[in-house]
């Protein structure tokens, strides 16, 4: 084991896969000599050269669309979209081309591409640079959706995503890039579709994604003082979703809080809640609570931004509202 930040873990996974498989390449805005807007790809341009770490024009549609074309013809591109908010621009290539091509062609194409996308608020980047839009993509059959929290999970899941023969949306939280954690000396792929229990507990199941895993773990410590033990389940991939692990936890605690940073209405929490409300109904002893951002665009000013995005206290309150 060694310590790495999330950014380092991602970079290491990219390096390993690029060394292992020459079809893998990176493309995006300022990913080359600049090293990426958040420094994630730093050094890769020097190591692999401009052909495999491609700086593109400010043309998100061309980035995703050309990745689709390259993936359909034998390459394994790893395009980056600089901010999640800019996914609005190449949506057609993601949704109508990448996701559907295999199906429309009757299974006669595969589109192995992994789209890396920083999400999230926390740096006063305001409404067009702070969104979490992962929910849109679970609604698009043909895509897989990954949203890790720890450095080790980022590394292991990125490797699996790159090796996956389907288009994968890989969401990274920009405020996690600098967060450290243990990473195995030999990074192994972590299969898509396996949740991870980040903390065992008895009283309430807290299903949290990305940054909210950390906030939930903090909440867990506070709640412990009040004698409430929460189990923190990190789905890690939103599709495929590891219902088994989630459901097992619900069977144990009979109480659920779902936490994500995206706005609440129509967020991924709704889908998870709906699945539980259907299939786990008999095990539930309390309302299913969701903790998520207010349904507003992310505001700029720090006190507003802080207010809009869920924090530890919101999680604690939600848990307490249903704890035995």
């Amino acid at each position: 084991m060694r310590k790495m930040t999330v950014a380092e873990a991602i970079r290491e996974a990219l390096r390993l896969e690029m060394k292992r498989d020459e079809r893998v390449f990176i493309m995006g805005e300022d990913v080359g000599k600049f090293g990426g807007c958040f420094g994630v790809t730093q050094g890769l341009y020097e190591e692999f050269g401009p052909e495999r770490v491609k700086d593109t024009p400010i043309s998100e549609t061309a980035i995703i669309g050309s990745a689709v074309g390259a993936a359909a013809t034998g390459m394994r591109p790893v395009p980056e979209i600089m901010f999640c908010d800019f996914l609005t621009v190449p949506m057609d290539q993601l949704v109508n081309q990448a996701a559907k091509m295999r199906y429309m062609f009757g299974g006669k194409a595969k589109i192995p591409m992994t789209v890396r996308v920083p999400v999230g608020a926390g740096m006063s980047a305001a409404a067009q640079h702070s969104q979490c839009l992962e929910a849109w993509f679970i609604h698009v059959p043909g895509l897989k959706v990954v949203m890790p929290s720890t450095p080790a999970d980022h590394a292991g899941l990125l490797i699996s995503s790159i090796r996956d023969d389907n288009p994968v949306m890989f969401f990274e939280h920009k405020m996690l890039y600098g967060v450290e954690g243990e990473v195995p000396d030999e990074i192994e792929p972590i299969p898509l579709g396996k949740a991870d229990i980040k903390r065992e507990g008895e009283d309430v199941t807290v299903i949290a994604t990305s940054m909210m895993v950390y906030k939930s773990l903090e909440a867990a410590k506070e709640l412990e003082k009040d004698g409430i033990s929460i189990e923190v389940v990190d789905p890690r991939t939103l599709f495929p979703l590891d219902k088994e692990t989630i459901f097992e936890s619900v069977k144990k605690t009979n109480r659920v809080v779902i936490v994500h940073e995206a706005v609440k209405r129509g967020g991924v929490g709704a889908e998870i809640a709906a699945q539980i409300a259907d299939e786990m109904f008999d095990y539930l002893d309390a309302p299913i609570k969701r903790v998520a951002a207010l349904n507003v665009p992310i505001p700029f000013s720090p006190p507003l931004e802080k207010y809009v995005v869920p924090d530890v206290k919101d999680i604690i309150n939600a848990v307490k509202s249903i704890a035995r």
Partner: protein
Amino acid sequence: MKLKKEELLHFYRKMVEIRKFETKVVELFADGMIPGFVHSYIGEEAVAVGACSNLNDDDYITSTHRGHGHLIAKGGHMDKMMAELFGKETGYCKGKGGSMHIADVDLGILGANGIVGGGFPIAAGAGLSAKMRGTNQVAVCFFGDGASNQTTFHEGINLASIWDLPVVFVCENNMYGISLSQKEHQHIKDISDRATAYGIPGVTVDGNDVIAVYEAVKEAVKRARQGEGPTLIECKTYRHRGHFEGDPTVYRSEEEVEQWKKKDPIKRFRKKLLELGTVTEDELNSIDEEVDKMVEEAVEYAKKGKFPEPEKAVEDVYTDIVEEVRE
């Protein structure tokens, strides 16, 4: 340019294949045998054939909603195409795609596309891939005049231009995007003028002259294979039928249609061949008959095929996940 007789006959045969295929499709659509939308390529055959006759099996094309012609010209199999139009499991896409999504990736056909302009960046990506893999494949991107106003036109061609990608952008300017005439949807006459915006060559040719198209694309393909980057080629042409089957075509005049029918690419080429004396009328007629038979066989094949089992709907979404898509 001196073209060999077999090349000329190939042009003729392929154009006739498209024409007869499409004529049959129109008929079958009217008879209710083909569900969904059908956009006929009749009148534009010289573009697909002139362009694709420059390509090898492993070269790529991206096609459009009006794709049958491109597919046939690139070597697609009529029977599987027809079966797909019928929605049969024996079709190219097992009935999952239909007219707007027929593909044959093994033949480099990266699909018809229901999204106007969807193909530009995909073609650029195929070109990028060819370049990175060090092959000398090229990609031809077909698109309409209407599509030249889409977002993707701009970004796709710009990308190809800066990376000198082996892509040929072939515009089928049939003067209309559904009901809107070119005059109304853009403020230029020649779409090839847009090449200036990317510092690449742009040419306009008579899209009803298969040889003119062939030669322009030949030059562009050569440039592409030599690493000199993309070319934009505009082929002025016309669709004889409505935008889709069922279109009442209120937006254009009978005279205009008649004018263009006089420039029918197949009739013109047939006449030219006979005038040149390279071929006899009999040779051409026997091609016509062979193609008639092909089309009949394709229809037979399509009719014979079964509709897919409904449960198959859950297959082919992912390479690995199947039953879970029900949840």
